Every structure is written in C-alpha cells, then in structure tokens.
C-alpha cells in the first residue's frame, strides 16, 4: 500500500535531480571554465565537513536508492496489473477513451530511461564510452561527444522517453500524494506538460548547441 507513495516520492526526487542537472548543463554556455568549475564544485561541495566528492556520493546513493525503490515499486505494480488481468482475460477489442500516450508508455519508457542512464554515465561520467575522444575536462567530454550526430540522436530519443515519462509521472505523483482536487485537474495537467517540456528542451539545448557549432 505504501508502494504507491514510495513510487511518488522517489519519482519526485528523481525529477528534482533532473531539474538541477538540467540547470547545471546549461552552464555549458558559460564556456569551459564555468562548466568545469561547476563540475569540480560539485565534488568539493560540503568540504571540509564532507570529504572530497562526499556530497556527490551522498547524492549518488540517494539517486541509486531512489531508482531501485522506484523500479522495484514499478515492477511490483506491473506484475500486479498482469495478475489482475491475466493473459486469458484480455480484451479482443480495447479502445482508450482518454488515456494519454505518456501513460501508455510508462513502463517500457522507464526501462529505456534507465538503460540510457547507464549508457550516459559510461559516456560522460566514467568516459568509458568516448565516441569523440576522452578527456579529463567534463566540458570537453560533452563537446567531443555531441559533435557526432548519432550521439545527439541517441540523447534525443532518450529525452523523448524522459519527457513522456515525466509528463504522466509528475501528474501521477501529485495525484498519488493526494494533491488532485476538484477543479485542479486541468491546471495540474498543464503544469505536468509544461514541466516535462521545459526539462526535455532544457536538456536538449546543450547537445544541439554543440552539434550546430554554437559551443565549441
């Protein structure tokens, strides 16, 4: 029963991370200096109370835990739904009345997002995948990577998935936490759409800026 609440809370944490991360990414327009300092700053944050990278590790642990709890809850709900309408009891004809594409793609969309994150960490954090050439500077890693069209394309696809996941996810988290009240539903939906668009577009600006040569 607490499953849904856990889902919503972890989902919300992940969304907050995304917003912060998007904001950070936009610093790329400040040039290599700003961006690398920002990255370094992330690692130094909280020093000397916390060791080097202390904050980052706390964040990483929280994120990982969130993803795990979130995924566990998602898979449990998924299995419950399958049990609630078993294979022998599917409709021959089933039409949606108002259901959105976003709600339809939550589950596989979520899986796509996680696969992307793994790929993404290998690419930009550990730099094990380094299509445009490895570098110690995060700024360069980004610029090197996004000069290649198919890297950008892979991010576009991933971000579309993220966008859809957030579109329904934000609305759903609010409803699960009891925030949907009579008369508020419309505005909530607008906010969810708006926020997910901002996140998606915000994330996509840097790669395209690199691809189009605006950031070098």
């Amino acid at each position, binding site marked *: *029963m*607490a*499953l*849904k*609440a856990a889902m919503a809370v972890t989902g919300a944490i992940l969304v907050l991370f995304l917003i912060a991360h998007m904001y950070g990414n936009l610093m790329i327009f400040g040039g290599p200096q700003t961006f690398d300092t920002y990255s370094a700053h992330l690692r130094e944050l909280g020093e000397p109370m916390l060791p080097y990278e202390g904050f980052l590790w706390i964040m990483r642990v929280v994120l990982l835990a969130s993803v795990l709890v979130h995924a566990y809850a998602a898979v449990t*709900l998924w299995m*419950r*739904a399958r*049990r*609630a*309408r*078993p294979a*022998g*009891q*599917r*409709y*021959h*004809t*089933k*039409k*949606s*009345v*108002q*259901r959105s594409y976003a*709600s*339809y793609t*939550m589950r596989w969309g979520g899986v796509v997002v996680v696969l992307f994150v793994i790929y993404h960490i290998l690419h930009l954090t550990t730099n094990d995948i380094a299509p445009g050439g490895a570098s110690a500077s995060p700024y360069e890693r980004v610029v090197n990577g996004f000069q290649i069209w198919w890297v950008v394309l892979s991010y576009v696809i991933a971000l579309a998935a993220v966008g859809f996941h957030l579109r*329904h996810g934000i*609305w*759903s988290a609010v*409803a*699960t*936490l*009891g*925030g*949907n*009240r*009579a008369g*508020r*539903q419309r505005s909530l939906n607008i906010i969810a759409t708006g926020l997910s668009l901002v996140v998606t577009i915000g994330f996509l600006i840097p790669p395209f800026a690199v691809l189009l040569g605006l950031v070098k």
Partner: protein
Amino acid sequence: MNITLRVWRQKSRDDEGRMVTYQVEDVSPDMSFLEMLDVLNEKLTLDGHEPVAFDHDCREGICGACGVVINGVAHGPETTTTCQLHMRSFKDGDVIDVEPWRAKAFPVIKDLVVDRGAFDRIIQAGGYISAPTGTAPDAHAMPVPKADADRAFDAATCIGCGACVAACPNASGMLFTAAKVTHLGMLPQGQPERAARVVKMVNQHDEEDFGGCTNIGECAAVCPKGIPLDTISQLNRDLLGSLASGNPK
C-alpha cells in the same frame, strides 16, 4: 438497421470462451442495447440455441447490474450504463464487439455475466458507518455544511457497476473504493471510523487481486455516474494521513 454482433460466449467459469458472430436484423434506433440483445435471444431460442446470458435488472441506469464492453469501451460509446445506451448511437451495418468485464477479481460466470462479489467484500471491510438501529440521535443534531453534503452525494452516486475496473489498464478498483471512502469521509458521521476505514478498504481491495492505480483516468472517463477522478486523490490523501498517524497496515 442491420447489425453484426461479435459476442463473447463462454459456457461456464471453466470454459475457454470465444467470440461468436451473429446477425441482428431490423434493429430500431429506439431500442436500448439490451433490448437489441433481447431480440437476438428470442431468435436464438427459437432456433434452438442458448440465448446470450447478460446481467441486468432495473434497465434504467441505477441498479448497476448491467455492463458489457462494447467495441472496446466499458458501457459503450456514451457515458451511461449499457441499459441506457440506445441503438441510435450506432449505424446500419456496424460490427459491434461485445465482451464481459475482464479482470481476475471479476471472474466470468457465463457469457457476459461476471462475479462482482469482490466489491461487496470491499464494503464489508469497512465501507459503512457503524450505527446500530435505534441508536441514532435526531437527524438535525448534526448539521452538515452543504458543500460537504454535496461532495459526499456526488461520490455516493456510484452504482457499483464495475465499469471502472473493466476500463482500467491495471484492472484496478480504485475509483469504486475511493467513491465509498469519499462518500463516508466527507460526512461528520463518518469521521470516527475514517482513518481505519480507508486502510481496511484498500487492503481488501488489494487482496481481491485488483491491480494498483497508476492514475491513468480511464475509469472516470467511462464511469456512468461521473465519479470524478479526484476522488482517488481524496482516497490517497486519507490513506497517507491514516498511515502517517500510525494506523496499522
């Protein structure tokens, strides 16, 4: 008009079941959907076949007995009960698929008839106010603000038809459960049991093998009584409050 029906036929709980095609001729647009099925059944009987079993009683949209999935939509294309759907919503030559509610919690008994006993058990778990006969104070002892009374009423109009479950991609019974939680929770009389009620009802809901709600909203879109989606959020609010205040799971 002439209609081609593809109807789910299933002899009993254990039978596999299949879609069977029938032609119904001379359908009048003024017929209700169930009257059209009556016509089919008269014909089947005279031909020596078993008529199609379907649940129905009041035929005026209030008892909640009727309900089938018509062309993939619970209760069909209008937002009303199957018994109040009329053939003028269809065209000559239409092919109409008719299926029972499908959910593990609602096993098919025969053809289009399912067992919705799970709903009764959710009510048994706590969907009431304990007020033994004869113990009541004067009805005016407890005024109820009109806004609360209206909200309670809107939720209380649920007829227990089960269309919400049929339509929900997760086969969740959350709208039905939320309607009762909201009806009783909005009234002063319902307060003493409010926190315990929601936990008990949701537990029973989960035990009955309904799916979990992921806020998709198909339920409210097909609900013939227009139970609004925010009743589910009301349930969630009550549930979180109740769990937070230490009500046992």
